[in-house]
């Protein structure tokens, strides 16, 4: 099975379209990954902290970078066990959208990473687009 992670960015939705796409690069990565997953694949929505910079929606929290780094490693390995071990209280404090990590952890049992298509925090929120194959 193909598994994809994308961030839940509202700016990706058509009702929030701008003349100049503020998330053009992310959109391209999301579209390609979702297309790759196809109708049989699993697309999971989630992202890292929204407190990565002073301009971030949740302002800067010094713990956010480390939290995201650990989460990135768990995703890239992938390590379902590490994903299940993410501290939900800290995630909430850091405005990380990790509600679907449980589903993702189950789907990634025995899976291998195919690619990391996007890994950046352009607006103070950590986004990943990743693909796995099981």
């Amino acid at each position, binding site marked *: 099975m193909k598994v994809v992670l994308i961030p839940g960015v509202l700016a990706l939705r058509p009702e929030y379209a*701008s*003349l*100049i796409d*503020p998330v053009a690069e992310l959109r391209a990565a999301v579209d390609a990954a979702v297309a790759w997953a196809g109708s049989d694949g699993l697309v999971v929505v989630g992202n890292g902290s*929204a407190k990565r910079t002073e301009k971030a929606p949740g302002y800067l929290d010094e713990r956010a970078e480390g939290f995201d780094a650990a989460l990135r490693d768990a995703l890239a390995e992938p390590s379902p066990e590490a994903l299940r071990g993410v501290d939900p209280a800290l995630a909430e404090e850091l405005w990380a959208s990790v509600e679907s990590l449980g589903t993702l952890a189950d789907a990634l049992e025995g899976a291998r990473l195919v690619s990391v298509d996007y890994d950046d925090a352009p607006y103070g929120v950590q986004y990943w687009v990743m693909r796995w194959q099981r």
Partner: protein
Amino acid sequence: MLVVTLKLGRHAFDDNDALMMAIVNRTPDSFFDQGATWAEDKAFERVRQVVAQGAEIVDIGGIKAAPGVEIGPEEEKARVVDFVARVRAEFPSLVISVDTWRAEVGDAVCRAGADVLNDAWGGADPELVDVAAQHRAAIICTHTGGVTPRTRPYRIEYDDVVAAVLADCEAYAQRALDAGVARDSIVIDPAHDFGKNTFHSLEVTRRLPELVATGWPVLVSLSNKDFVGETLDVPVGERLTGTLAATAVCALAGARIYRVHQVVETRQTVDMVWSIAGRRPPARAIRGLQ
């Protein structure tokens, strides 16, 4: 909002485009610039500047609107015809409008490459519509209350100024249609300050939705005019804020063409209102949407 596809000579525009028509005076005495672009090279620099600022249309005029030294058709042609040809050659995708009421001048500028005849004087020369039809040019049908070109309004009153504007503009548009001008090449303009006192121009602005509802694309020419000056008690040169306020009201109503001195400021005003009205997405929105 009723939308009409707009064809201006050799150029066509989408239903919802708002267009900037930049004023280019080939006159020594127009009220706003006082002859700043009287020299041909200065006028050409002005064209280059407004094109760089994003104006879709230039409106070239050889005679100031207010009373003054009489300019015959030969002199008017000498001021604008070769200039139109020069602008046409350098800016093939620019819409060229010429501000004239004379059919003879209209014919000459269309031969030189003009796309639009902007008749600010409400059809004073009945043959202007024939010239527009013959050259497949667009025509701006204005309301002046029947005054003679280049006269100021004096004690003009209307039972209902907007009803008069509607009746005259629609009659003029019909005359243009009958003469063979294409339906999508006819624009109406209530002509603020022309045959109107300040109260009339304010009422026309307030009731602009009635003009838009006719289905004809509406042009507004508000820029730095006396009705702005009298409303705010400010001289020429201090009327930009008032002009932009009136512009915003007309934009909300759905006016399609804005005849302006200040292209950048007017464009921003109209873009802002267009987005408020839901006709244009924001340029780049990410706040709260990350």
